[in-house]
């Protein structure tokens, strides 16, 4: 086992962990979005989905724990890589220009940290009901929780909708480098695929940003509404 710990602690090993956890997070983000896009199918479908998730019980907690672990490894590797990079150049340049590196590739730690803050806020919002507690309580009044109404009403609150949309732009910046970068880190590359991987990465990122931003946007524009409530 020593070889594994030592290997994964090396620079390339850490990048490998970063890429594998990044890929798992990416798959989660896609699944999470597809689940939420059911908001467009109306209250019955969406609340049914929410109830199905709650009904998973132990499995739900296992998934939450797994996700937390993946996120912790991702963040821990990010902190390690960033700290080592800083140590690797103790005297900074007076003048430094990037010739080819994208803005996204140079700001991965910053965009990642903001996304982390957003994840905490997001859990406080929809999972624990700490933020928008009134809406959360209202949604849980009946025998079946009405997450559809909470979702839509939350985003009728403009600052909330704007915060979510901003966070999604940052996720997009993170992934615009991250998706193609993970292939390189895992060593799944061939020169002839380079352009294809880059374009596919940007495509996946674009789809995630568009899909996720559409939801608060449709709510704030009153295109998605709670039946019987006009705002």
């Amino acid at each position, binding site marked *: 086992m020593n*070889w*594994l710990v030592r*290997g*994964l602690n*090396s*620079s*390339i*090993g*850490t*990048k*490998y962990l970063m890429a594998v956890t990044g890929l798992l997070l990416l798959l989660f983000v896609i699944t999470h979005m597809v689940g939420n896009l059911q908001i467009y199918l109306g209250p019955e479908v969406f609340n049914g989905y929410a109830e199905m998730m709650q009904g998973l019980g132990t499995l739900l907690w296992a998934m939450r724990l797994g996700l937390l672990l993946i996120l912790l490894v991702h963040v821990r590797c990010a902190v390690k*890589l960033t700290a*080592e*990079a800083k*140590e*690797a*150049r*103790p*005297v*900074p*340049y*007076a*003048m*430094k*220009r*990037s*010739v*080819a*590196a*994208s803005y996204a*590739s*140079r700001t*991965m730690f910053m965009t990642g940290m903001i996304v982390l803050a957003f994840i905490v806020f997001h859990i406080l919002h929809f999972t624990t009901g700490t933020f928008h507690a009134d809406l959360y309580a209202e949604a849980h009044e009946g025998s079946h929780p009405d997450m559809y109404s909470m979702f839509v009403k939350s985003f009728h609150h403009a600052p909330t909708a704007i915060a979510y949309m901003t966070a999604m732009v940052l996720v997009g910046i993170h992934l615009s*480098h991250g998706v*193609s*970068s993970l*292939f*390189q*880190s*895992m*060593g*799944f*590359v*061939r*020169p002839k695929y*380079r352009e294809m991987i880059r374009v596919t990465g940007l495509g996946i990122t674009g789809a995630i940003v568009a899909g996720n931003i559409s939801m608060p946007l449709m709510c704030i524009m009153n295109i998605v509404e709670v039946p019987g409530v006009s705002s």
Partner: protein
Amino acid sequence: MNLVLKVWRQRNAEEPGQLETIEAPSINPDMSFLEMLDVVNERLVAENKEPIAYDHDCREGICGACSLVINGVAHGPDRGTTTCQLHMRRFHSGDEIVIEPFRARAFPVIRDLVVDRSSLDRIIQSGGYVSVSTGGTPDANEIPIPKRAADVAMDAAACIGCGACVAACKNASAMLFVSAKAAHLAHIPQGAPERLERARSMVARMDEETFGACTNTSDCEAVCPKEISIEFIGELNRDFRQALLAGR
């Protein structure tokens, strides 16, 4: 042309350095960047001042001795070009040019713009060779090597080990250098058998030498005077993964 240089001056590794403003009047635009520094140095010596220390050797773009980060870019503004092959016609009269050493913890400054790049040599010593001695030089084409393999190996072997990749990288990572030095052997029959072992030992040494990790920004590829592709970094990542997971 008349230029104003802002040059990093540092007496030795221990003392801190700073940028010093030095006038460079009447520079011929056909001079190379290093010839311009020679002219400036002659003036400094005539004025009884310390000349600017900088590295150079072949002055024809093949040895990898010259370095310098010029206006924030390793080897200056021309792509695929070493500092010795950069010419002053690339600049305009009146320009201010900031000249700094290649900066990395693994490249300590010896004096002014001269840095100690022996960390790269130690990475080669850790595994950048074929360990079986095969006697004298074999006849050409005695070992058949597919054209494609020879081409890829040659692309990697074009690395002159200057360290510009490290200088340009935001993480001061040496991955482009190490991956090129691993790949030029991995692609040919003589070097292929030790491919995984080599990846493991060279990466271990690279980490010990305190280079940062690669985050695939591709700035290295852009400044490389030999335009080495980051595809070799992907290959080294793959070899290291195989060495780690599939090795014994």
